[in-house]
């Protein structure tokens, strides 16, 4: 059992306090600068939704544990209202649904199963689960689609795969009644169409918001001994949280060999091990500030030729950064994948800076393996003092200061229904009812606040009082939500291309990056090799169609 700091999950919640707090939160956000041009405006959901939220946020309740199966079943049951308003009892009796999703970290399908238990009892439908590990997801999905052996009626899928699924006409458009039930109007701006759409038609029930934010150990950067040593060693400026990659590099080199709380101290944690394509995102988070030039939507490929930009000096610098700093990271970091870095190392107290999806925020206070409560804070990904302009082919220092470009990694999970279900009206309606239940307003507040694999994705999720009533310290959760909100709304955020085979590009890059990190090739050779591999993939899939789809995904 880990020691908890503060009154986590300790105070009772009332509808009045939630409503009062939620209203006050908007004012508080405005006062703290969270609301504004670059922030998500926290909205309050309708009263009946708020009432359900008030009840479910108490589960699992005061001073307890990571949510159990039984806790999540209760949440699912309490959120059945919108289903009951549209579906009659036993309306889907005899209907069988095959649902494909992830079995990662005891979240995703584990959470869905529990949420849907009462739904199954009420509607009479029966769900068969196809659970996949994160690393197996892409292959299973691609093989099923390409060989016509689709063995699922609906699936949990990230927007990057939309090109593969919706581009081939395999999705079922979202019915109007579902749009009303899930209230798509209060999605955060970056998840609104064109995300989830194809040729202007909406297919996706969003259940997650994704971006990489910067998780850091506030105690490291408030440590007086480290500050004094930093000054003595001639470190530039005050000892403070790095806001640029140049500062991250310097801090990581400085921290190596120091002790914090009697333990070996480390700075930044890179993800170096191939991870079925998902490892790419961690490298991309290092590169976006160098490569994403303000005003230019594209950053991975030239939108008119699909020529990769990976061999540009921007990406080469990012590769070189990892190579330079790897010896100062924890031993065997070269063999660490994303889960190891985020959950074993950072939550386990090793290292002081890492990029991750928003899972780290709630996990610090809800994961039984976390030992960093009270020590963590968040920001958007670091920027860079200069940025590479592909048009002039020169590095530029912007008049506005460092260039920031948050990595909108993966664009969040959604639930999609297969076109084939349309042959059976009851099955199609049942699938959409499942999607509506999982993407409902109330249930989404719970998945945002507790470990579920999903992060805030509605404007209503940014109400600080919901989180403080759950038990998160106010300063902590404000820091977390601000990092998410500022990333989502950043004018120079790096949006991922929704083109077919995107994970093939990522996987090929991972292999070459691993070679460079192991010292088998220099940064430029690595970048050139990735570029060559990507050109081959583009030709294999079809260059003309990829150009068209890439341009469409950029909204041009």
């Amino acid at each position, binding site marked *: 059992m880990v020691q908890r700091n503060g009154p986590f999950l300790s105070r009772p919640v009332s509808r009045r306090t939630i409503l009062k707090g939620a209203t006050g939160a908007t004012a508080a956000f405005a006062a703290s600068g969270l609301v504004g041009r670059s922030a998500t405006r926290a909205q309050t959901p309708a009263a009946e939704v708020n009432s359900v939220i008030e009840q479910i946020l108490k589960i699992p309740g005061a001073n307890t544990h990571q949510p159990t199966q039984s806790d999540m079943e209760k949440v699912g049951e309490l959120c059945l209202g919108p289903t009951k308003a549209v579906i009659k009892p036993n309306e889907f009796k005899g209907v069988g649904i095959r649902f494909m999703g992830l079995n990662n970290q005891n979240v995703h399908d584990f959470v869905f199963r529990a949420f849907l238990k009462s739904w199954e009892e009420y509607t009479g439908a029966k769900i068969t689960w196809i659970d996949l590990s994160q690393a197996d997801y892409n292959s299973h999905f691609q093989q099923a689609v*390409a060989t016509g052996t689709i063995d699922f009626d609906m699936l949990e899928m990230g927007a990057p795969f939309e090109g*593969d699924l919706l581009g081939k006409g395999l999705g079922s458009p979202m019915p109007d009644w579902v749009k009303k039930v899930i209230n798509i109007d209060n999605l955060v701006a970056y998840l609104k169409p064109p995300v989830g759409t194809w040729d202007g038609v909406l297919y996706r029930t969003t259940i997650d918001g994704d971006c990489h934010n910067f998780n850091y150990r506030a105690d490291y950067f408030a440590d007086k001994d480290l500050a004094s040593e930093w000054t003595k060693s001639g470190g530039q400026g005050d000892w403070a949280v790095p806001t640029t990659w140049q500062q991250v590099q310097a801090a990581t080199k400085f921290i190596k060999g120091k002790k914090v709380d009697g333990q070996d101290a480390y700075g930044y944690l890179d993800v170096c*091990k191939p*991870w079925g394509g998902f490892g790419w995102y961690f490298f991309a988070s290092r590169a976006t500030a160098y490569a994403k030039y303000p005003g230019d939507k594209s950053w991975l490929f030239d939108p008119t030729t699909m020529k990769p930009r990976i061999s540009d000096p921007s990406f080469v610098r990012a590769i070189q950064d990892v190579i330079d700093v790897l010896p100062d990271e*924890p031993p065997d970091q*070269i*063999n660490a994948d994303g889960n190891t870095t985020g959950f074993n*190392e950072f939550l386990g107290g090793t290292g002081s800076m890492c990029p991750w999806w928003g899972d780290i925020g709630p996990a610090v206070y809800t994961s039984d393996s976390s030992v960093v409560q009270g020590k963590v804070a968040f920001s958007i990904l670091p920027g860079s003092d200069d940025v590479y302009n592909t048009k002039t082919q020169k590095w530029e220092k912007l008049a506005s200061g460092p260039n920031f470009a948050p990595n909108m990694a993966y664009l969040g999970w959604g639930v999609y229904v297969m076109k084939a279900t349309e042959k059976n009206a009851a099955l199609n309606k049942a699938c959409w009812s499942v999607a509506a239940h999982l993407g409902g307003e109330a249930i989404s507040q719970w998945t945002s606040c507790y470990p579920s694999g999903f992060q805030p994705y509605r404007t209503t999720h940014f109400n600080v009082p919901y989180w403080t009533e759950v038990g998160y310290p106010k300063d902590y959760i404000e820091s977390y939500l601000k990092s998410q909100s500022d990333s989502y709304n950043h004018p120079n955020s790096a949006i991922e291309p929704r083109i077919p085979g995107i*994970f093939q590009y990522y996987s090929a890059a991972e292999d070459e990056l691993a070679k460079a990190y192991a010292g088998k090739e220099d940064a430029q050779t690595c970048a050139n090799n990735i570029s060559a591999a990507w050109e081959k*993939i583009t030709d294999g899939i079809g260059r003309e169609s990829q150009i068209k789809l890439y341009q469409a995904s950029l909204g041009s």
Partner: protein
Amino acid sequence: MTESTVAAAGAWEVPDRSVSPARRNLGRAVIAVPTIALVAVAGIQIAHTARASAPGFANWRPVAYVYVLWAICLGIGLVMTKGERGKRALFVLPALLFTLAMVVFPTAFGFVLAFSSWNLSSSVGRQFNGFANLRQLFHDTFFWQAMLNMVYYVLSVLVQYAIAFGLALLLNQEIHLRRFFRITFLLPFMLSPVAVSWMIGKSIMDARFGPAAQLLRTLGAQAPAFFDRAWPARLSIMAMDSWYSIPFMMILLLAGLQALPDEVLEASKVDGSSGWQTFWRIVFPIMLPVSITTIILRTIFELKLADVVINVTGGAPGGATDTVSSYIFRVYNDRSNVGYGTALAEFYLIVIVLFLALMLWLSSLWLRKVR
């Protein structure tokens, strides 16, 4: 040739006088009609697959059904045309047809795929691309690194053999708790390599929290890690692989040792041979056939090594621990590159067949020389 040998040879020949010409003709028809149907259905589907506009079935299932029907009719037809000999053929036929469907056909189909460009994300599907995959293979540094790694991994089999032989000799002695040790030494072999990967590679050998790293730190090692550089990572994989493979070799060698003729060993004792002389001049030569079989079997398993590498390192650092199978897994699984992945697999199959044929030939030469 004597009459008795002719009679003995003829004992296997059963006259099929019971088969009337009419029955034989009917039997031929029972075989011919389904054969024509199978060829026709398969031909239609092949044409449909090659050109979508040609008529065909939605999938290959009808071809599979006709194949099963053809197999049944073939069995019936053989009995009708060959009588007793046909009945005997029925003992072999199911296994033969099963092998044809499950081994020969996929391998042959694999060769077709190997000459194709088939990226699962491509909207145009599979396209014939000649020798492009083969050309790519010869320039693929990851593949050749994996091939080189396979040489190292296969060489480690000799070390595993030496350890397994030592353990087998030990367990063949009249030692205390012999049965207990035999079962204990076998335990790793009963574990799944995936479990071994997680228990040992991801837990015990974890550089941060693993007891092995803790122990090395206690002994004064600075920042010990098992998978951060090429050779330590490779050796760590070999160690894990050996841990669950040595018992397999040990049990084969132990069986061989227990079959050694006691009188030969007793005679060497009477003649005053030392323990080493007995081993080197008597036990080792007699055990050679068992040893070679053990090494060849273990080499075949080693050439397929993948699970531990995929789970523990994913080929890192930089492909230094990759096996050919783990690399093919990435090409096929992560990059959906069916054409190139199959080309790699087929090429590797040919290399394995040639290597094992060479190994068998050399070992038979050596055995002949020793004898």
